[in-house]
């Protein structure tokens, strides 16, 4: 199969959906003239014009608020947040308007829109340009949340998100943009709400998503060397997360480790761990393990950033200790 980058995959998804549906348009800062900081909008303005790929003022509340309004009035906006870190600027629009409008108006309207949020650590971007804040949105009813880990899912999930009649937040990792992977030619959709067992195994379930999947694979390899067969589940969607796949895997392997780049405390892993502790504790042969960032903001200096970042070797070591438990 052909290989393209994650960024290219999102470009294809966007272009295909824009050709298919004239109601789809994209708005955000520096996406038309620049093509996005990470190239994820490159060339779109050339094909679709500045009326459908719209550079906005630096006004995040307007970007999200206007997307909600346009969605209610029959359009299908895709709003770019520039950095996930800036979602806080538009948090009211995201959680009090976008998420609630359908419900609090008794289903009178739909809010079909996508919020694209580049997240994660990248080259010492420091405290305000490196965050992964997906956990907050797991606590907010009315939004779907996806976080693809590879180009194929990036394309399929973005297309599904654009076609979804609900608001969808699409977290895309900054490091992943440049990574290549096999992507089928042409049309396909990746279903929202379905996790994927990307590697079968019988000894431990490793759950991750987005960039955390890179560590998941490395950890699994290290474990393999020690004779431990890890099953890897790529969550892909955080809301609604795929409870069946998680339970099925944990019931099979009897052990669980959850990995994500975001802050561990109160992170998405907390919900997954709690869910398993509620619903399959009797299957567990060992403590649930969570791996995530320490409880500090993201530091600037490279050695500090490195110390902050997930460390596959250390994760594998901790898991191995857990096996002697």
């Amino acid at each position, binding site marked *: 199969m052909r290989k393209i980058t994650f960024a290219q995959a999102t470009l294809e998804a966007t272009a295909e959906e824009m050709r298919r549906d004239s109601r789809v348009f994209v708005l955000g800062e520096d996406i038309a003239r620049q093509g996005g900081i990470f190239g994820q909008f490159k060339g779109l303005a050339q094909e679709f014009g500045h009326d459908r790929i719209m550079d906005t003022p630096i*006004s995040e509340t307007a970007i999200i608020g*206007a997307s909600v309004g346009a969605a209610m009035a029959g359009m299908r*906006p895709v709003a770019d947040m520039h950095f996930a870190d800036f979602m806080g600027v538009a948090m009211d629009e995201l959680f009090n308007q976008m998420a609630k409008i359908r419900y*609090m108006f008794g289903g009178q309207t739909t809010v079909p829109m996508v919020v694209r949020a580049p997240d994660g650590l990248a080259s010492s971007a420091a405290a305000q340009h490196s965050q992964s804040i997906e956990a907050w949105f797991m606590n907010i009813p*009315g939004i779907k949340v996806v976080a693809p880990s590879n180009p194929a899912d990036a394309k399929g999930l973005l297309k599904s998100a654009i076609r*979804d009649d609900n608001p969808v937040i699409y977290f895309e990792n900054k490091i992943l943009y440049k990574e290549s992977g096999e992507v089928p030619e042409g049309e396909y959709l990746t279903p929202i709400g379905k996790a994927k067992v990307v590697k079968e195994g019988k000894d431990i379930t490793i759950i991750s998503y987005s960039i955390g999947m890179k560590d998941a694979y490395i950890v699994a390899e290290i474990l393999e060397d020690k004779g431990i067969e890890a099953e890897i589940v790529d969550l892909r969607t955080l809301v609604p997360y795929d409870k069946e796949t998680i339970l099925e895997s944990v019931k099979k392997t009897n052990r669980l480790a959850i990995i994500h780049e975001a802050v561990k405390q109160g992170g998405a892993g907390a919900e997954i761990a709690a869910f398993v502790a509620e619903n399959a504790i009797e299957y567990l042969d060992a403590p649930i393990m969570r791996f995530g960032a320490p409880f500090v903001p993201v530091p600037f200096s490279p050695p500090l950033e490195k110390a902050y970042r997930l460390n596959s070797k250390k994760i594998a070591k901790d898991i191995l200790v857990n096996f002697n438990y």
Partner: protein
Amino acid sequence: MLKYSKDLLKTFYYKMYKIRRFEETVEKYFLDGEIPGFIHLYIGEEAIATGVCTLLDKNDYIASTHRGHGHTIAKGADLNRVMAEIFGKKTGSCKGKGGSMHIADFSVGMLGANGVVGGGYNLAAGAALAIKKQKRNNVSVVFFGDGASNRGTFHEAMNLASVWKLPLIFVCENNQWASTTPYRTSTSVEDISLRAIGYNMERKIVDGNDVFDVYEGFKEALNYVKSGKGPYFIEAKTYRIKGHFVGDPELYRTKEEVQKVFRENDPIKRFEEKVLGENLLDEVELKEIKDRVEIEIEEALKFAFESEYPEPHELYEDLYV
């Protein structure tokens, strides 16, 4: 005044009077404990919603505030369903999920009240953007208070509307108060409409207690906006007659101050005096309208009272499509 048809005059009166009686009714039943939640009354400001919405059709959009009953009614929402919603009944326009602070009727282009002060600007801007993209000959209107004019969203929407030349009309209801706060203690400028200068936007001040002045001002705005020139800013000067919410002890101002304004500047009384004084409508015609309104209010009340509350299982409905 010859330029106003009888029909139009009757519409003005009908809308204003209907809002007034609706609000009085809601106030009563709230105090009686029949209505849950919080209620913000539009009494004394009826001329604004009326003057504006009379010029709109159902394909035009409005985004409203926490004080949204008047806008909703003026925009032509079904009174029964509005009343039922405020009572929390399943027949309400939001199936009882929204209540007064989230009253909405999308079937007439009323995109919702908003519990977040200043939450409506950008929604209305987005609706205006949709209109523009769809090449429709419609407009979007956002109502907001003097207090709301200090939210950052005001600024972002004003700027966006201007640079994108959106068919959006800002209607500031400057009623002198933001809850307990006299507006000049928290708003840095005497005429909020002066702020339009900072966005290169056309502006006009109207007497918010004179339905004719509101209507004329808004018509001008509408013509301007529909010609594709971009957004327009209307500041309607008015006064909040009632407490901020029903039950507000109003310790921050005197009863006399309020009563004086209401006596001298009640938009309905002013309308009556004018049309009667200039023989545009007579007592009988006004009475007919009042009677019609009473019947509608009665019907809406009956509808609301007789409707069921939602069932507990409905809690889980209407979240995702």
